[in-house]
């Protein structure tokens, strides 16, 4: 017999969390930021940010910047005859639907209701499954003023959830905790935004940023994309955006167990001499020795589904048993 049935206890399913840097530079901190010089029809909605010049072959989108406003301020109207309907209003509604799932909800940052926000939307390929809480560190600089932001995951004992999954307040601090040991923001202007790890999105509160580093969004109705550019400039001048991703990798472990009396002969053509099937050496009649190199896993139809190779041959004879753990990743 060449096949051996696996028992239920030979299988083990393991789900392991794998974390990595979010950026395609494979560095935890992104220090250089570029936008595409070519204009796009989406420029009034968002701009993609690259780790290098967008025309270079290794350029990859790292994240996008958008600005949303509840009354459509901050960008030109779609139609001058229709008040309040502009790209920023579209973005506002889009994120409200994503975050709250309620068309009547308002964004609340640290207890303060906001009429607008900046959104940093991390490219899906960068964050894989979710953003890793406590690793968000963003420096924003406007002129001579600088603020270092993080999420407050290190300060809360219980996660808070919205329609978009887990939500953390963005505060002044680093690595998930505040600098001052307090909440990391003032109650007057509210938190610096919301960190939404499950949807790869960071919302920034203009009220808090204007109070902290005088970064004011344009709230006129005829500007086109200036707010996106002003946030981009603050990110560029801050020159430090640290973020890690988190992914759950599910692995199947299959334990291959061979007893001493099993798998000691081979159908390898070099194991026999000629077409008669005689074993190659007379020693192999009573003391056969085989060299295991490959493990094949089959279904009931004897179809080969997965295969694993050993790094070097494993000797098998009537005095040896083998235990091999095969890892299958999905």
């Amino acid at each position: 017999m060449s096949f051996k049935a696996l028992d239920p206890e030979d299988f083990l399913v393991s789900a392991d969390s794998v974390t990595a840097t979010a950026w395609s530079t494979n560095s935890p901190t992104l220090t250089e930021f570029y936008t595409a010089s070519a204009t796009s029809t989406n420029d009034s909605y968002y701009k993609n940010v690259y780790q290098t010049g967008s025309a270079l072959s290794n350029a990859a989108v790292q994240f996008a910047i958008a600005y949303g406003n509840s009354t459509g301020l901050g960008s030109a109207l779609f139609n001058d005859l229709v008040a309040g309907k502009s790209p920023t209003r579209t973005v506002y509604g889009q994120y409200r639907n994503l975050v709250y799932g309620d068309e009547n909800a308002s964004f609340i940052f640290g207890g303060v209701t906001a009429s607008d926000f900046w959104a940093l939307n991390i490219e899906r390929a960068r964050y894989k499954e979710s953003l890793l809480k406590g690793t968000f560190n963003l420096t924003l600089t406007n002129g001579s003023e600088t603020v270092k932001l993080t999420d407050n995951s290190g300060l809360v004992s219980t996660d808070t959830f919205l329609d978009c999954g887990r939500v953390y307040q963005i505060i002044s601090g680093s690595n998930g905790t505040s600098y001052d040991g307090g909440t990391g923001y003032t109650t007057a202007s509210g938190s610096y935004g919301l960190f939404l790890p499950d949807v790869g999105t960071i919302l920034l509160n203009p009220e808090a940023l204007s109070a902290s580093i005088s970064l004011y969004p344009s709230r006129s109705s005829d500007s086109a994309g200036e707010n996106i550019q002003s946030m981009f400039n603050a990110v560029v001048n801050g020159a430090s955006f640290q973020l890690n991703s988190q992914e759950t990798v599910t692995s199947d472990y299959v334990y291959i167990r061979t007893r001493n009396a099993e798998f000691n002969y081979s159908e390898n053509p070099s194991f026999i001499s000629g077409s008669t099937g005689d074993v190659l050496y007379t020693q192999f009649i009573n003391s056969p020795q085989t060299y295991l190199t490959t493990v094949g896993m089959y279904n009931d139809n004897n179809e080969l589904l997965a295969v694993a190779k050993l790094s070097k041959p494993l000797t098998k004879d009537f005095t040896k048993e083998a235990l091999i753990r095969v890892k299958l990743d999905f």
Partner: protein
Amino acid sequence: MGYLNNTAVTVDAILTKKGRELLARGDGSFSITQFALSDDEIDYTLYNPTHPSGSAFYGEALENMPLLEAFPDETQIMKYKLVTLPRGTARMPVLDIGYSAIRIKQGASLAITPQTLNYLSQTSVNESSGYTFTISDVRLFNTFNGIGITTPEAQAANQTQTIGTNVSKTVIGTTLNLTATTVNTLFGGNTNLTATLQVVGRDSGARISIPVTVRKTT
């Protein structure tokens, strides 16, 4: 006194083409239920039972050889399986299918009934569990059916439909019935299509692999 190494050997597995196909099918056919071991790449003529340093060195040339990575093509790996046979076995089971190569005309039919030699103390026997027949490119045949085995897994394998792709197909039976394709477009500008037929004894593990050629006639 030293510590014994009691850790299991851990290896990473890859899915074969067939494995990916069955996983994509999502009908539960991707279910690992059994395993087999093979010694692909091992050349037993390197085993030296006359080594001057003694029996501990007989396998010197094999034991530390580097091995190639796994191939995803299920017809190119697990070729030579290790088998469980009683101690004292002097002759290994071998298959005889009556052909060393198959050349068949477009649309023609053929039945293959393998025999296992040197098995169960008999010179020649038809294995009770039958044989698995694997063709490397299923498009070459309009009919590729195994008959003679009525177990659920054999029937499931024989009823599997694979359409339009150059994947392998495995059927189970004591006899293989095949009919070469009548589809001219498969040939392109060629007059022959080639594939490999692999036959494995389900009880003995004996294996034979032969080339198959379908000749265009129209």
